[in-house]
């Protein structure tokens, strides 16, 4: 098949939350920007599965780039989320100490938070924690309250970033894996599984494949070591059992297992932290899930009274270092954004701004700057259980998914949107359909009918003759 070549100012490789935010930033700078995603839709890799927390950065390493990006991202999300109809549930978090050793570690957590500029963090007594969280198990020794931590929609946010970029002339391609990179006469040519594309600047946001993409033209300066996190989602009534995000006192190796509400009204338990070599396969494991449930019940005994809605696993693109691995290569007109772990959802907008600064300060002018003066703010469908949703409004076409109360109008709107879903998973993430406790028992046949032959891989294998 003959490959066509297309010209752009900037190509962003990877449609995770970081890629989407970077795409948005560069289109808003006026660059003709293209996003390439190898999956069937955005959020097909690391960004598919995380804990959906908007972090203050209270526990990030002081002075780190990670902290700077998180705090800039946090501030920008708060500034723009209402314009794009994106939810934020300001629950706060409590780091809970369950033994003397953990209790002794609390002052250091508070002092680090203050050093990081999160000045409202304070240590509290067990009594105050039980007042706030009456369902926690006996044995709380004390804790640290982090009022600024919150919960967001981990899928609508990056979709909103991408959509805003598309509204300003940016383009994207799904099913488009980058297979080669050639730099000639100040111009990159990326060959892909489909066409080839040219641009003056390439930004590698390839997540779990970031080092492989760099290896297309240089020896990578980092190595991705995927870290798997398994999670359990409990049925919605369980979310009444906590108010804040319940965090453990972290160890050197891991932030540990947390309990949190989700923006969709459920209760989340996880993650595990398991190193693996495979970059794509994130499977759940029965023993680990059972061990997570046991850990959850030790913190929250009433969890035993609630059923599990979903289990999932995510792969975080960890590297040999904790710090983000952002490498500008001004000579080669390339920027690598690697090692963005679980804080990426919070930091994405901040990383994008950081790249803008890096580009303006360190790179020769590669395209004409034409900053958008009056940005278009796309309004995302509201999926939060804590806000009014479409099923409450007339003309919704009726409820199709009875666990998540997804309407026919919402499903049809997803297909009519600026970035329609490329696969069943994309439709689920855009609407919540099939995400509920019945795992699609009732709605999957309706979904199959609505989807028709729009996707390569569907819920069905054929018609009955």
């Amino acid at each position, binding site marked *: 098949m003959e490959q066509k070549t297309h010209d752009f100012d900037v190509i962003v490789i990877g449609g995770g939350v970081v890629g989407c935010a970077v795409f948005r930033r560069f289109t808003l700078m006026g660059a003709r920007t293209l996003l390439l995603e190898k999956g069937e839709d955005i959020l097909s890799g690391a960004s598919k599965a995380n804990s959906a927390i908007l972090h203050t950065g209270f526990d990030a390493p002081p002075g780190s780039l990670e902290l700077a990006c998180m705090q800039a991202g946090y501030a920008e999300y708060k500034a723009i989320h209402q314009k794009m109809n994106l939810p934020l549930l300001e629950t706060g978090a409590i780091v809970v100490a369950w033994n003397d050793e953990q209790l002794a570690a609390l002052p250091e957590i508070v002092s680090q938070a203050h050093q990081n500029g999160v000045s409202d963090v304070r240590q509290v007594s067990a009594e105050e924690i039980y007042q706030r969280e009456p369902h926690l198990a006996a044995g709380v020794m004390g804790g640290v309250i982090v009022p600024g931590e919150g919960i967001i929609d981990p899928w609508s946010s990056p979709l909103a970033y991408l959509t805003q970029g598309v509204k300003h002339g940016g383009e994207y391609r799904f099913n488009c894996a980058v297979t080669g990179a050639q730099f000639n006469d100040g111009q990159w040519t990326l060959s892909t599984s489909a066409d080839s594309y040219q641009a003056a600047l390439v930004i590698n946001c390839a997540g779990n494949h970031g080092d492989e993409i760099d290896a297309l033209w240089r020896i990578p300066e980092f190595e991705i070591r995927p870290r798997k996190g398994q999670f359990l989602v409990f*049925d*919605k*009534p369980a979310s009444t059992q906590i108010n804040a995000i319940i965090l453990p006192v972290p160890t050197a190796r891991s932030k540990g297992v947390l309990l949190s509400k989700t923006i969709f009204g459920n209760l989340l338990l996880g993650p595990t932290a398991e190193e693996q070599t495979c970059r794509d*396969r*994130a*499977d*759940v*494991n*029965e023993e680990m*899930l*059972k061990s997570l449930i046991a850990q959850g019940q030790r913190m929250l005994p009433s969890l*035993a*009274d*609630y*059923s*599990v*809605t*979903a*289990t*999932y696993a995510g792969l975080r693109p960890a590297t040999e270092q904790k710090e983000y691995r952002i490498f500008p290569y001004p000579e080669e007109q390339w920027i690598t954004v690697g090692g963005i772990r679980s804080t990426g959802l919070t930091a994405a907008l901040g990383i994008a701004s950081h790249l803008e600064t890096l580009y303006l300060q360190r790179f020769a002018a590669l395209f004409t700057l034409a900053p958008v003066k009056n940005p278009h703010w796309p309004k995302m469908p509201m999926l939060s259980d804590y806000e009014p949703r479409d*099923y*409450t*409004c*007339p*003309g*919704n*076409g*009726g*409820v199709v998914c*009875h*666990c998540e*109360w997804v309407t026919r109008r919402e499903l049809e709107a997803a297909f009519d949107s600026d970035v329609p879903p490329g696969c*069943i998973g994309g439709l689920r993430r855009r609407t919540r359909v099939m995400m509920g*406790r*019945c*795992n*699609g*028992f*009732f709605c*999957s*046949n309706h979904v*199959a*009918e609505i989807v028709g032959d729009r996707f*390569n*891989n*569907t*819920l*069905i*294998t*054929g*018609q*009955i*003759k």
Partner: protein
Amino acid sequence: MSKLYDVIIIGAGPAGLGVARALQHAGVKDVLLIERESQPGGVPKHCRHPTFGMLTFLRPMKGHTWAEKLLTYVQYPIRTATTVTSLLPDGQIEVSSDAGLETLRARKIVLATGVRETPRHPRLVSGVRPQGVLTAGALQQFVYLRGLKPGDHPVIIGTELVSFSAIWTLKSAGVRAVAMIEEGPRPTAWRLCLLFARLLNVPVHCNSRISRINGSERVESIEILSKGEHKTLPCDSVIFTGKFTGEYTLIRKSHLASDFGTGRPLFDQNGACSDPGYYAVGNMTHPADMGDQCYQEGLRIGGRIAAALPSGSIAPEFISVQHDDIIRISAPSIVRLMDTDNKTTFNIRVQRPVTGYVVVRDGSKELYRRRYRCMPERRILLKDVDMSNVTAQSALHISIES
């Protein structure tokens, strides 16, 4: 203020239709049925196997034919494509439909929302999440409502009655199941069903459990642990069957009291919940009986509701029914103290096979004793247990003794 109905029935399946027919028979005027699907009839409407009708019409009927026949008896309006989104005190409910959100009111509200199977995720099955993982209930809707095949080489997990119905459904779609997987030493359903599987050339693996789902876009195989040995079964879909559970989320989010661990609402021998303006009936109270049994139960509870309508209030006091751990559920879960006609039939389920005397006691006083061979997922009826001497100080307990 919207119209005040005498009774609103949530769910137009077997139990709900039974309640409706009994209310009609008793001359109750203003009754509304609410159904979330676009057609009334409940799960039987998705079924084409002939295991319906023996109790009600004394002949075997296919599910959809049976449901159609029951529907002809009901003259009350049925609002379809309407989903209940909250249950409120004082007989108010919120519903969502194409018209948006509305509040409806009734003197009595009946929860007849039925059951579904336990799907993949709450079973904590290892592996990835490809397409092709579903339940027998989903399979029926794909095949019978849409004429679509959700797989060509499925494995069936479980050996309950519904598991064998899945073989039947697949057969009508021109698909043969690759295998059936059962954890226990024998099928959960009647042994006769094994013959049915054998006739259709579907191997049944007992003492086996699914240990992993493999695939990328679609299921490619499952791994099973069979008598201590790991095996891989190539397949393109996995159908999880049975382990029925009710939809209790609405109830858990409401003011109604529920049962720790099972999520069921508390309900008494007449179906009345902790708020006596609400009734629970049918399979959601005892997952899961046959459609016919739920219809008969609906008729009985409908009669009690009709009798309770004129008098208005029901005593809020009740005592709860305790049971041994081997007993998974008891229906009813509470008993209200009545002056007359206080014989209560208990419908219980066990966790694992056991043979022995099922004994109902009030403190040390024995109210009922009978020997049963109890199997999981099968109903065990303790008929007409005399409750006339039960008082507010009673301690009701059901045990199984050898």
